[in-house]
């Protein structure tokens, strides 16, 4: 599996093959879920709770039902099957069930002839609420025993001490994935009691399981189809409007379309968990880590979603990519009335990376050591035990290589002496003269697990089919923009020796699960399934025809063609279907010990910032990165992931925060939730480190999340270097820099 197979074939692995959906996307005719349409369709709209916590006293749908053009109004009373859903724990009612547990929780849905009527009808529903005091303090929730999960790590000698000690308290705010495409779904009744559902998702099979349970329908009557998706970043890991739009279609017998507007989207999907982290690092005078002690508190909001797994990641990556034999962690994810939290790129590792990298810089300063030297000295390498779980690192872990590579990228000139305001902190606000600007440089290194952990039965199915017209790859993996579609083609081309490869998106009735497009897993998991299926197909064809090589025009033996592709397919298309699994993982024991992870990936970032310390303004000049990729299957796609992920990491560092007051999001719009623009985007230089790995196709690792993990602490380290401020909370606000 780890052999490097690079051929001269166009569009095989190792090339920057172009994505097959690129032309429709630049022409504007790629069909996103929100573009689906039929002449007889209805529009759906949702009524949401205006309170973070309230008792639903009564609901009168009469005024909505009475409106012309309204075809259905549904509430929790109309749920035919299981009344709750959820990926890990089915704890969220389909609609408010007696209580609203968070601001924006769905109360009712309406289907009407047009979008405007649907919205007006939803607003016409009369609800009597009894507002209650929301539980919004996660510590209070933990004290009350209101948690989704509590975990601990006890490794080594918990009484050991080091003579050099640094302590810190760190916080990360609530970040939103803010994919450009909002939630959208299109449900079409088939006229025979069944339903086809096209919906924005990261994992249609896990959606399907929850949808059929709530609809109380047999599996085969509901078919979930991959739909065109405008980004995800974790926001589509959980159910949003899926069940609602399906219920409306079944109730009306007509196709129903639902599309969230931006404010609904902010209310309607899970966020990155806000966190509060208390850290203590102890080292010997030479800088060897002796002990790390941490308390982690994440706020999971009102419903479970993936909070259990997010907490596990935060916990296992408490120490980052460093060796430490004595580790004590107590961690909890609270259940509150804040907006539900769940998956976002980096998935728990982002929060603890910010804290632990801040600690490493503090420790370096305390020791009088160069921060990178301290990191090299303690670098976690292949063959070492994970400092938290004790798991021996299998496969590659080029921690030293990424540190060396990031340091070797040349730094820019000291300060641009330009007075162009577009290049100064604050931009064209003309607030900062160049003479006020101070430059800072900061580094960070981040570690992440690959694919699902803790004994989860993680698999991906793929089917590769040889036809006279070319090869088809069948999968239900969700392409959310990252380029999985291209990687599937590239792997198949390289294995089967043909350029003519098309990816066919199957629905849930046609193929088994590909697992989630999350956890940096699809290049390895669906890529691994496609690789295994293509290899199986090739070997089967060669065996059937007695050949030793498969090319795009047939089977060869000793360089001579002995069968054409038409011969191979004489009895019909030939296919090979695979269910691929990564190396087995296991649940941790009560001390958090065990082989909980399938693999690891490491990356480093260096940020250069210009700061106006008097006004607290920051311009990020550049963020460079060195990234462990195992094997580079598509260098251009890797660069795209690295640059895009860095921007989200920078967003968390200095811009992106959902401001939440008593459970209510105060800035659920693109006017008030700030996302980095072209003018905010720093220059980025990338270094790709290829050290192979033990199970991905051709030795590839997933790299979707790494760029968002250590980019945030690198930016903060740079601002600290420029200002001397402690900056223990992200995003950093101007007042944190000014010190008021």
């Amino acid at each position: 599996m780890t052999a490097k197979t690079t051929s001269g074939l166009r569009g095989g692995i190792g090339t920057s093959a172009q994505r097959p959906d690129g032309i429709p996307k630049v022409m504007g005719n790629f069909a996103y879920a929100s573009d689906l349409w039929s002449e007889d369709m209805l529009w759906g709209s949702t009524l949401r709770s205006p309170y973070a916590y309230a008792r639903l006293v009564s609901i009168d749908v009469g005024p909505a039902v009475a409106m012309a053009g309204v075809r259905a109004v549904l509430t929790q009373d109309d749920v035919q099957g299981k009344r709750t859903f959820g990926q890990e724990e089915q704890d969220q009612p389909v609609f408010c069930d007696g209580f609203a547990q968070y601001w924006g929780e769905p109360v009712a849905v309406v289907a009407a002839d047009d979008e405007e009527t649907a919205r007006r009808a939803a607003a016409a529903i009369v609800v009597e609420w009894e507002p209650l005091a929301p539980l919004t303090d996660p510590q209070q929730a933990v004290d009350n025993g209101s948690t989704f999960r509590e975990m601990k790590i006890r490794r080594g000698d918990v009484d050991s001490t080091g003579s050099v000690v640094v302590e810190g308290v760190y916080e990360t705010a609530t970040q939103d994935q803010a994919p450009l495409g909002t939630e959208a779904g299109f449900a079409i009744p088939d006229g025979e009691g069944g339903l086809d559902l096209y919906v924005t998702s990261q994992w249609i099979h896990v959606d399907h399981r929850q949808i059929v349970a709530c609809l109380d329908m047999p599996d085969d009557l509901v078919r979930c189809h991959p739909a065109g998706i405008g980004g995800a970043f974790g926001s589509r890991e959980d159910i949003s409007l899926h069940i609602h739009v399906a219920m409306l279609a079944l109730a009306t017998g007509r196709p129903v379309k639902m599309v969230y507007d931006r404010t609904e989207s902010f209310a309607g999907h899970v966020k990155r968990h806000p966190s509060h982290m208390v850290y203590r690092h102890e080292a010997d005078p030479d800088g060897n880590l002796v002990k790390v002690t941490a308390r982690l508190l994440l706020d999971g909001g009102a419903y479970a979603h993936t909070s259990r797994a997010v907490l596990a990641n935060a916990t296992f990556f408490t120490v980052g990519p460093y060796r430490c034999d004595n580790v004590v962690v107590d961690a909890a994810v609270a259940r509150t009335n804040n907006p539900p939290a769940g998956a976002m790129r980096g998935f728990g590792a982002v929060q603890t990376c910010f804290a632990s990298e801040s600690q490493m810089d503090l420790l370096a300063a305390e020791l009088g050591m160069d921060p990178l030297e301290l990191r090299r000295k303690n670098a976690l390498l292949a063959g070492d035990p994970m400092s938290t779980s004790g798991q021996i690192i299998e496969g590659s872990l080029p921690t030293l290589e990424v540190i060396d590579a990031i340091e070797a990228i040349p730094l820019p000139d000291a300060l641009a002496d330009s007075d162009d305001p577009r290049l100064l902190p604050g931009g064209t606000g003309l607030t900062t003269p160049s003479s006020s600007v101070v430059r800072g440089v900061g580094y960070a290194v981040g570690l992440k697990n690959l694919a699902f952990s803790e004994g989860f039965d993680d698999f991906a199915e793929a089917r590769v089919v040889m036809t006279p017209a070319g090869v088809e790859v069948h999968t239900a993996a969700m392409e959310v923009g990252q380029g999985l579609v291209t990687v599937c083609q590239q792997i198949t081309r390289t294995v089967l020796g043909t350029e003519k490869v098309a990816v066919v998106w199957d629905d849930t009735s046609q193929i088994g699960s590909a697992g989630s497009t999350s956890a940096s897993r699809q290049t390895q998991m669906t890529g691994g399934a496609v690789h295994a299926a293509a290899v199986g197909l090739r070997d089967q064809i060669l065996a059937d025809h007695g050949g030793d090589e498969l090319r795009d025009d047939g089977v060869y033996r000793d360089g001579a063609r002995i069968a054409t592709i038409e011969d191979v397919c004489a009895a019909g298309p030939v296919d090979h279907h695979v269910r691929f699994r990564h190396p087995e993982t296991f649940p941790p024991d009560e001390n958090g010990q065990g082989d909980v992870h399938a693999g690891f990936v490491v990356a480093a970032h260096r940020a250069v910032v210009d700061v106006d310390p008097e006004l607290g303004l920051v311009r990020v000049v550049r963020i460079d990165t060195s990234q462990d990729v195992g094997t580079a299957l598509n260098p251009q796609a890797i660069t795209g992931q690295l640059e895009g992920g860095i921007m989200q990491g920078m967003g968390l560092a200095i811009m992106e925060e959902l401001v939440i007051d008593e459970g209510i999001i105060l800035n659920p719009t693109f006017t008030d939730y700030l996302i980095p623009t072209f003018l905010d985007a720093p220059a980025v230089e990338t270094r790709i480190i290829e050290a192979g790995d033990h199970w991905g196709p051709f030795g590839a690792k997933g790299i979707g999340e790494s760029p968002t993990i250590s980019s945030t602490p690198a930016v903060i380290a740079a601002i600290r270097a420029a200002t001397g401020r402690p900056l223990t909370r992200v995003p950093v606000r101007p007042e944190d820099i000014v010190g008021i």
Partner: protein
Amino acid sequence: MNVTITVNGEERVVDVAGAESLLTVLRNDLDLPGTKDACEQGECGSCTVVFDEEAICSCLVMAADADGAEVTTVEGLGSEDELHPFQEAMLAEGGVQCGFCTPGVIVAGSHLLAANPQPSEIEIREALSGNICRCTGYGAILRAFETVTKEDA
């Protein structure tokens, strides 16, 4: 009320109720879903069209105010056989990931290049600062501009 808009060179008459945006009319009445709806506040640029020679957010224009206007959407730029050079460059440089911002970026970018075939990097950044991309981090889009401006040089 009937509104007459010349869209991608073709005169179209739409019966609008009054309050809908040009974006809504393009997507829902004129069968032009290439123009995307992502924020409806003029912040993200996904709905960028050229309106009487200006690149604007179509979510901020009342459809009724488009009466008599000339509008170019992404569907009016290039064809599968002959893509606009900026469309080609976006593909070649990996400027497209999820693609939801892409129509707006293509319209804003080609509009900039028509007015200024050799924009500097900072001019590009400023001209497209209203087009948010959540996937690429903008690097690949800037490289797409670079290839187009080099070709023209």
